[in-house]
């Protein structure tokens, strides 16, 4: 493997979403955006809901991720996410739908506290999906 290449594996319970050699990775870690280049020191961190950006052959690509976990070791980046989608695979109509539903639920607010929390998370996820899908354009 060339010195400036990192292997990026994105794994979700539904299968392997992405597995390829890339040159840089940017992830939404718990402490903020984090960039990873080749020969990074071993690292473990948690991920927030957000966009993963990776560059391959000077082209930027995006994925939406809804929380998870990241491990870097020996030029291999492993992302364990509850869900992840490539920007081009995102169903925008569905995301917009989900966003509207979540907003509606937040407006009503009469539900239990737990539901508000869940709605907020759903809203965050759907906004993220829409955002990532738009980045692609």
């Amino acid at each position, binding site marked *: 493997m060339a010195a400036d290449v990192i292997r990026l594996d994105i*794994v*979700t*319970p*539904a*299968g*392997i979403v992405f597995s390829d050699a890339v040159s840089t990775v940017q992830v939404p*870690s*718990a*402490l903020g955006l984090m960039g990873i280049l080749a020969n990074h*020191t*071993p*690292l*473990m*961190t*948690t991920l927030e809901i957000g966009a993963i950006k990776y560059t391959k052959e000077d082209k930027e690509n995006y994925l939406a991720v809804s929380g*998870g*976990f990241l*491990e870097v*070791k020996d030029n291999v980046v*492993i992302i*364990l996410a*509850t869900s992840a989608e490539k920007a081009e695979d995102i169903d925008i109509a569905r995301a917009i739908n989900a966003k509207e539903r979540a907003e509606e639920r937040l407006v009503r607010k009469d539900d239990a506290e737990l539901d508000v929390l869940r709605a907020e998370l759903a809203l965050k996820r759907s906004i993220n999906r829409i955002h990532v899908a738009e980045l692609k354009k």
Partner: protein
Amino acid sequence: MASMRDIRRRIKSVKSTQQITKAMKMVSAAKLRKVQASLIAARPYAKKVQEVMDHLLGSEAEYENALITPRAEVKKVCYVVLAGDRGLCGGYNSQVLRLAENEIKAEKAECGLLLIGKKARDFFRSKPYKIIGHHVNIGDNPTMVQSIALSKYLIEKYLSGEVDEVHVIYSEFISTMNQEPKSVRLLPIPASEQVEQEKGLRDLYIFEPGEKAILDVILPQYVQSTVYRMMLEAKAGEHGARMTSMSAATDNAYEIIDKLTLSLNRARQAAITTEISEIVGGAAALE
């Protein structure tokens, strides 16, 4: 000997039964393929989560996390029984349920049952055990959403102190022909055997925002991925068992049809012989 009409009627009824069993077999085969695909897809994730957990737990008992540390006194145990919603799948359900009952009988602490699947519910309904809850009609394809809901529920029960241990009884999918009922402790998370070898690796890593925070994230994910895998295994086993038993039923039907056809032909020939001898006899009487 049964009359020809009776035999024909029986052949017809066996044939239609055979059609049903054949169709069920093919449907189960298709469903099995689907579940197996998700099982294979889920495998890398489960493996990775396990690996990361082993790395983290590598060195010591230094971080206590409620999900790992066994409780000093186990007073209440929750048994989750994963069985099917439908029958006609050979010994699949009864195997799981028998193991479940034996486990519960052997358990000294107070038990509570969480029953998944109609067959589990019906089996334990008439027995003197405490049932915490049941879920039926879970469908043929376990989804992530279901496993998230179930694992959240179990973690909540565990953390609130309502139960001190959670065990899952399910059937592990070994092959289409072979399923093995198993009882596994889900909570507190049992220590992995590999942990010993991973010592030292831990020192190499940077942890952000901290080891404890990461553990807090990874452990529920581990529980959830384990529950998901168990649900998939159980479902794959159910489809496999149904496929096998339906295939056996179809073969049996073939055999019965063969036997019946043989006796039908015999009866027909006997009738013809009688008829001829009657004609001959009649003709002889005329002369």
